[in-house]
């Protein structure tokens, strides 16, 4: 019985299937879902990020993350303070999870903004004119600039509001999306199936939107995941230096900064747990990026 069902299931895709009504997005989602099942890393990474985000907003925390308890400062991890406390008496455990409320949304918003700007600019720059070559040369230079420091300077000069941090992150990431989309589009435009689309009478817009852009999306998604990981580092760096998010708001960078003053004297937990959280988040984003790269068949192996 079970064998028969198995055989039937295997035979199904062979039959003429009905036109799928799910539409493009539906099919893309289903493909991604199917990919997630076959690519464990992608699923794990995605679930971890989701869990961190959900925990940040909804998990019941044992202590108030932005209300210090001056009576218990620099306590090592124990039954009450699972990750210990810092020198102000903040509960490290609660703050590590509360930090996700700020750090992750900022990283995602900055990444989304850079995609939103990078894709159209990249597509626009994918014609082979001298003009676009020069723009790219300029962009090269801009990208070779120590962008991290530039982002620090911008946030420092404009003030550490959320918008400014997001803007700085987008600025750091936009060049690589322009570059990526452009170089992908340049290759695609030379490809046979784009020539074929032109040959059947597709308009330039149709070629761009229906053939070139969709074929860049996979690699853009992978890059976006890497960019988000980078954004996490930038935000943590900003806060670590005291330029970005400031106490008492919870942020992993702020917590590492606070703990950095005690690490040389052995109170490792204050910096360690937020640092470990940053590490886990970045690894998760990298896993998603790897998974997507594999899924679209662009991995080295």
């Amino acid at each position: 019985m079970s064998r028969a069902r198995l055989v039937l299931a295997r035979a199904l895709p062979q039959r003429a299937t009905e036109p799928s009504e799910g539409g493009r997005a539906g099919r893309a989602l289903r493909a991604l879902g199917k990919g997630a099942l076959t690519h464990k890393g992608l699923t794990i990474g995605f679930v971890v990020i989701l869990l961190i985000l959900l925990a940040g907003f909804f998990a019941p925390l044992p202590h108030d993350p932005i209300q210090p308890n001056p009576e218990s400062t620099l306590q090592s991890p124990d039954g009450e303070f699972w990750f210990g406390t810092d020198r102000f008496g903040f509960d490290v455990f609660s703050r590590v999870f509360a930090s996700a409320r700020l750090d992750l949304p900022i990283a995602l918003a900055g990444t989304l903004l850079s995609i939103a700007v990078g894709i159209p600019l990249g597509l626009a720059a994918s014609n082979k004119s001298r003009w676009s070559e020069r723009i790219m040369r300029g962009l090269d230079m801009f990208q070779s600039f120590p962008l991290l420091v530039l982002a620090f300077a911008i946030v420092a000069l404009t003030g550490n509001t959320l918008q400014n941090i997001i803007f700085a992150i987008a600025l750091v990431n936009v060049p690589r999306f322009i570059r990526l989309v452009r170089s992908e589009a340049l290759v695609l435009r030379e490809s046979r199936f784009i020539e074929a689309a032109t040959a059947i009478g597709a308009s330039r817009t149709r070629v761009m939107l229906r053939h070139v852009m969709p074929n860049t999306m996979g690699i853009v998604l992978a890059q976006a995941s890497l960019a988000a990981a980078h954004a996490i580092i930038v935000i943590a760096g900003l806060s670590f230096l005291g330029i970005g998010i400031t106490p008492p708001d919870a942020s992993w960078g702020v917590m590492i900064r606070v703990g950095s003053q005690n690490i040389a004297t052995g109170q490792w937990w204050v910096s360690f747990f937020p640092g470990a959280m940053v590490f886990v988040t970045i690894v998760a984003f990298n896993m998603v990026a790897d998974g997507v790269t594999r899924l679209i068949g662009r991995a080295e192996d």
Partner: protein
Amino acid sequence: MALVTLSEVRKTFRRGRSEVHAVNGVDLHIEAGETLALIGESGSGKSTVGRLALGLIQPDEGHVTVDGMQLDGLDRKTLQAARQNMTIVFQEPFQSLDPLMSVGRIIEEPLVIHEPSLTPAERRERVTDTMQRVILDPGLYERRPRELSGGQQQRVGVARAIVTGPKFVVLDEPTSSLDLSVQAGILELLANLQRDLGLAYLFISHDIGTVDYFSDRVAVMYLGQVVETGPKAAVLDTPRHPYTEALLSAALPADPTEQPPHIALTGDIPSPTQLPEGCFFYSRCNYRGDPRCATENPPLRQVGPNHWAATFCDVGSTPVSL
């Protein structure tokens, strides 16, 4: 009037500082329902001619007319609309199909563009009919190109080309990347489609065997020029241009008992960035003797019924040894 005419067409590409003279004054015509084969080696400009014939690139000089419509200088919208009537099948079947689209959507796309009034159901029916016509299982409708074999992929390419009912199809080496047994099936299909739909083909190829099997007339290209053209039997059996003669002798018959004389050519094809003076074939020619060879580019002259060759000399006369 012929369905397709190219008159005095020239095309030069700029590559960095140098200019590549890809097509240097080509005259061709193709009648409705016939197959003109364009033979030549790499760099002879045959693929460029194919794209010029469809208006995919615009000539620098000369004119291209398809079905009474002059393609050069046409505005983009009209040209796009005209593509309902003319199209192309490429050499690399897989690369010519959008990897993200299903087989059905690939074949459907020309209909979406040219016949927007069709309902999805009507479109689907047309697509299924076309798939059957090119002997492609309609069950493959939802498959992606990479799940198909090379032969099936090329059938998708053919289906996409004929779904709008064109009159003129450029076949740009449609079988050269396929295995022999698959090639046979595709050639058979193309021949049947031509018979049933009255298609005119410009069949671009470097393989003498398939050209011999497949075409009505033949044009031989060398360095961006047509050096010889005429009915298939005349050109392939009694070549009148020294290059055609050498090219044909280089083909290897599959029959071991047949051993044609090999007329070896010296040197390589001159670079299309610097066209030679005189006859383009002068540097490799075994017959050169006429004083004009070195200084004048010979025009096509009639050497038989409908048979033309661009040469001063007479092939068949004793070759002048070098």
